[in-house]
């Protein structure tokens, strides 16, 4: 009996153990299945993240390439700019040199115009010589006037001689011829004196007109030179203003 009981107990224990083992295996299988699912989900998520990061890397690579291209372009531009700046600097240096030369030219023109303005003194000197010439002309006028007065006197004397010759009658005929000849000479002298006076008048006029033309021409030239000097000075000051 006890043996039956023992066998029964052993049997029931074995069944229980088998059942427990089955339950354990089912539970274990269940417990193992859950992490796998979670791991699958994680793998999917990681794969998705990985894909996104790959896309980002691709995008960043593309941006990097673009930036490198831009950088290369900027380098080229910079090189061009440097070259251009050098050209501008050379041009600027040349312009500064030209400006300095122009300023020197303006200086020389102003100085030359100032120097030439003293030509006015030369014209005035010529004009003063006109006064001297006209004084001589006046002297000749006075002498001619005196000559004319003498000639008029000779005419009167010759007339008187003719009258006296006529009174003397036959004896005075020779004297009358002489008196007539003297009167004729006096008339020619008078004519010559008038002609000489006209010549002196013409000389007065032409001398005055000529020397006044010289004097006025000198003032015209002096005024023109003053304009040149003023323009040169203005040009010079503009150049100086531009350089400061």
């Amino acid at each position, binding site marked *: 009996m006890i043996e039956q009981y023992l066998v029964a107990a052993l049997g029931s224990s074995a069944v229980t153990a088998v059942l427990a083992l089955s339950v354990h295996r089912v539970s274990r299988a269940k417990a193992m299945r859950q992490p796998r699912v979670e791991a699958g989900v994680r793998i999917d998520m990681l794969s998705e993240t990985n894909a996104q990061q790959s896309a980002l890397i691709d995008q960043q690579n593309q941006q990097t390439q673009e930036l490198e291209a831009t950088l290369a372009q900027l380098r080229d531009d910079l090189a061009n700019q440097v070259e251009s700046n050098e050209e501008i600097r050379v041009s600027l240096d040349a312009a500064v040199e030209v400006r300095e030369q122009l300023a020197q030219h303006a200086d020389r023109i102003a100085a030359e115009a100032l120097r030439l303005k003293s030509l006015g003194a030369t014209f005035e000197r010529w*004009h003063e010589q*006109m006064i001297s010439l*006209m004084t001589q002309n006046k002297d000749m006028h006075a002498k001619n006037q005196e000559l004319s007065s003498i000639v008029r006197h000779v005419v009167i004397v010759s007339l008187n001689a003719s009258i006296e010759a006529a009174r003397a009658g036959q004896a005075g005929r020779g004297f009358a011829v002489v008196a007539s000849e003297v009167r004729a000479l006096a008339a020619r002298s008078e004519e010559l004196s008038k002609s000489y*006076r*006209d010549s002196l*008048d*013409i000389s*007065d*006029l*032409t001398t*005055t*007109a000529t020397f*006044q*033309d010289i*004097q*006025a*021409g*000198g*003032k*015209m*030239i*002096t*005024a*023109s030179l003053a304009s040149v000097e003023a323009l040169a000075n203005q040009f010079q000051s503009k150049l100086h203003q531009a350089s400061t």
Partner: protein
Amino acid sequence: MISSHAKDSFERIFRKAAQSRLALDSGDACDITPLGQGETGASLAGDVVVLTISSIVFRLILVIHFDEDASTRDYFARNAAERPFQEVFLEICNLCCGAMNQELLRYFPDLGMSTPYVLHARCVSHLEELKPGYLSSHAITINGSVHLAATVCVCAYAPIDFIADVSTVEETSGELEFF
């Protein structure tokens, strides 16, 4: 060589200068009458004041004939009794020529003017010797009692053609530059 426009212009410029400078007061009557060819407007007695305006293309000779009679002396020297008449009159002639010069400067940028000089009036009859392109004489009477005559003689060295507008208001400043 001197166009009719230019001759008229010289005439207008002279008239304006004579009326504004030979008449001492703006209220004085200044009658300017043109004289015929060959007339100098006065007898051969007396003296003339000669002035020249020179440019590159012409020279203009202004001759003002005067007799130093009592009415002339009284009129021109009334405000300067202490100075010799001729000095005063030369100054007035200088102003007259200066006014012409000023007007001509509007059309000819390069001009110069001489100082005045006195010659015998007989010389005026020889102005043709200078071969002028324009020669015009005028009798000038101021207040009916002062008698002057003026001759404008222009010798041209290139064609001259310009139209002077003398209607602008006269500027009274800058007279001293003529001296």
